[in-house]
C-alpha cells in the first residue's frame, strides 16, 4: 500500500463527481473539467509542499494525455516524458501510464513502457471508482512507482543524469 505521505496527499485531492467516460458525449466534458480541477488542485498543493513532480496536459477531447514527471535523487533532477490514453472503460478502469524512455530498462514495466503497478492499485481504484481521477492515478500509481524504480535504475546505471551524460561524452 502507498506510504503515509502518499495517503495524506491523496486524502487532499478532491474526489470527482461525474461518472462518465470518453464515450459519454453528454457528460464527458463535465468529467474532464473535474479532472482538470483535481489536477490543478493537486499540482498547486504539491508546489506549496515543495514537492512539485509532474505536469500533464491533454488533447482537446481529453482522451490522450502527455506530460513530464521528475524525480530528485541525491540532489539531481531526473526528468521523464509520460503519456497515456484514456480507455473507453474509464473511469471504471484506470488508464495505463507509460514512461516510454524507460522501456526495456526495468522488469516492472510492460511493453511500450507501461508501468507495472503494485497489486494494491487495482483493488484501490475499483473500490473508489468513479470518484478517483487522473490526479489519484498520479499520486497512487506513477508517484510510488517512480519512488521505487528510479533510485534502483540509477544505482544499476540504467538511468544516467543528463548533465553527467554530457560530461562523460565530452571527456
Amino acid at each position: 500500500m502507498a506510504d503515509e505521505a502518499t495517503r495524506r496527499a491523496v486524502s487532499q485531492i478532491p474526489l470527482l463527481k461525474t461518472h462518465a467516460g470518453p464515450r459519454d458525449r453528454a457528460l464527458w466534458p463535465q468529467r474532464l473539467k473535474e479532472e482538470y480541477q483535481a489536477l490543478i488542485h493537486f499540482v498547486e498543493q504539491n508546489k506549496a509542499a515543495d514537492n512539485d513532480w509532474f505536469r500533464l496536459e491533454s488533447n482537446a477531447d481529453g482522451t490522450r494525455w502527455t506530460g513530464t514527471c521528475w524525480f530528485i535523487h541525491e540532489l539531481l533532477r531526473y526528468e521523464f516524458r509520460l503519456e497515456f490514453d484514456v480507455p473507453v472503460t474509464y473511469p471504471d478502469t484506470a488508464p495505463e501510464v507509460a514512461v516510454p524512455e524507460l522501456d526495456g530498462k526495468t522488469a516492472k514495466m510492460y511493453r511500450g513502457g507501461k508501468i507495472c503497478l503494485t497489486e494494491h492499485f487495482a483493488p484501490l481504484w475499483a473500490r473508489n471508482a468513479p470518484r478517483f481521477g487522473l490526479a489519484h492515478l498520479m499520486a497512487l500509481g506513477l508517484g510510488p512507482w517512480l519512488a521505487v524504480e528510479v533510485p534502483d535504475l540509477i544505482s544499476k546505471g540504467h538511468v544516467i543524469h543528463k548533465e553527467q551524460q554530457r560530461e562523460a561524452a565530452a571527456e
Partner: protein
Amino acid sequence: MATVEELKLRVRELENELIKCKQKQSAAEDAQSQELHRPKIDKMSAEVVDSNPYSRLMALKRMGIVDDYELLLFDYDKVELANMNRLFFQPHQAGLSKVEAAEHTLRNINPDVSFETHNYNITTMENFTHFMERISQGGLEDGKPVDLVLSCVDNFEARMAINTACNELGQIWMESGVSENAVSGHIQLIIPGETACFACAPPLVVAANIDEKTLKREGVCAASLPTTMGVVAGILVQNVLKYLLKFGTVSYYLGYNAMQDFFPTMAMKANPQCNDRYCRKQQEEYKKKEAERPKVEVVEVEEEVVHEDNEWGIELVSEVSDAELQAASGSVPDLPEGITVAYTIPAESPASGETVEETEQSLEELMAQMRKL
C-alpha cells in the same frame, strides 16, 4: 535535417520491410520446392480419405458439418524474442506485428480460413468504435455479426473493453487468461444478460494455493509458462469447438490450478446490480425472452441445469474464513472451492472526502490554467 528519432524510426520501418521480404521469399521457396501450400478448398468434402485434409474432422460424424470459417484478429503488439517461449511465433518474425505474423503462420497451416487483421489497441476511443463495428458486421456473411468473440488478452482494461462491446451488442464471447504467477488460468463463457459478465463481479481468480508470503513479487510484474498457457489455450479451443459444433457440455467457467491439477468449474448468473448498464439491459431482455418461452421448454431447461450440477459434482461452499471476511471490505460472492475473487468491493462507499467544487471556469480556461502552472 532529420532528427535522430526520425532516423531511428526510418531504420525500424526498413527493418520491418526486410523481414517481410525475407518471409515472402522463404514462403515462395517453400511452395516451389516442397509444394507445402495446398490450394484453397472451395467446398469441404465429407469423404473420409487421406487426401481430404478434413477427413479426420469429418470422421466425427456426430459433429455434423463444419462450415468454412473466418478469423478476425486484433492486437497491437509486435513479435519479440521474449514471446518465443510460449507463442507460436518464430524468431524470424520478430519485429512484425503479432496479427500479421499470426495470419502468415495460420494461413500456411490452413489456407481455407479467411483472415482479417487489425493492428491496434482496442481500448482507445476511435479503435473501439471500429472494433465494435467489426464484431457486429464482420461475420463471414457480410453485414452479419461474428459467431463468437475470443478474449486472449493480458490485462484488465482490454477485458473490460471487450466486455463493454459485447454487452452493448449482445455478442456471446469467451474470456480466457493465465494468472501473473503463471500457475493458474481460466476460461469463461459469457452470454450477455444470461451468465455473469466480466463486470458483474470483481475479477475471478483460480486459487493456486500458494502462500502469498512466499511469493516474491519484487522486481517482476508477470511470469509466463508455455505449458500453462498451452493447457488454457487448449481448453479454450475445446470449448469453442463444443459451442460451435454443438457437442458435449459447454463450460461456463472452467479454472485450471496447475499446482494441484485441479479444475474447478461453475456457472454464474448475471448480477442484477451489475455496474454495466448494458448488462442490466440484456438481463431484462433475457428475462422477457425466458418468460415468452413455452412451458415445456422451460421444464427441459430446468432438467438440464440439474443434470449439469450433478455432473460437475461441485459443492457450493464459501471458501472464506471469518478472519478473511472481517479483513475484506466487501462481500465475496458464493463461489465453489478453488475459485475466488481478486478483491472485493464494499457495497457502501468508503469514507468520502471532499469533492471538486462547482466552477464557473470553462474547460478551455482550466486547460490554460493547467498549462501555466
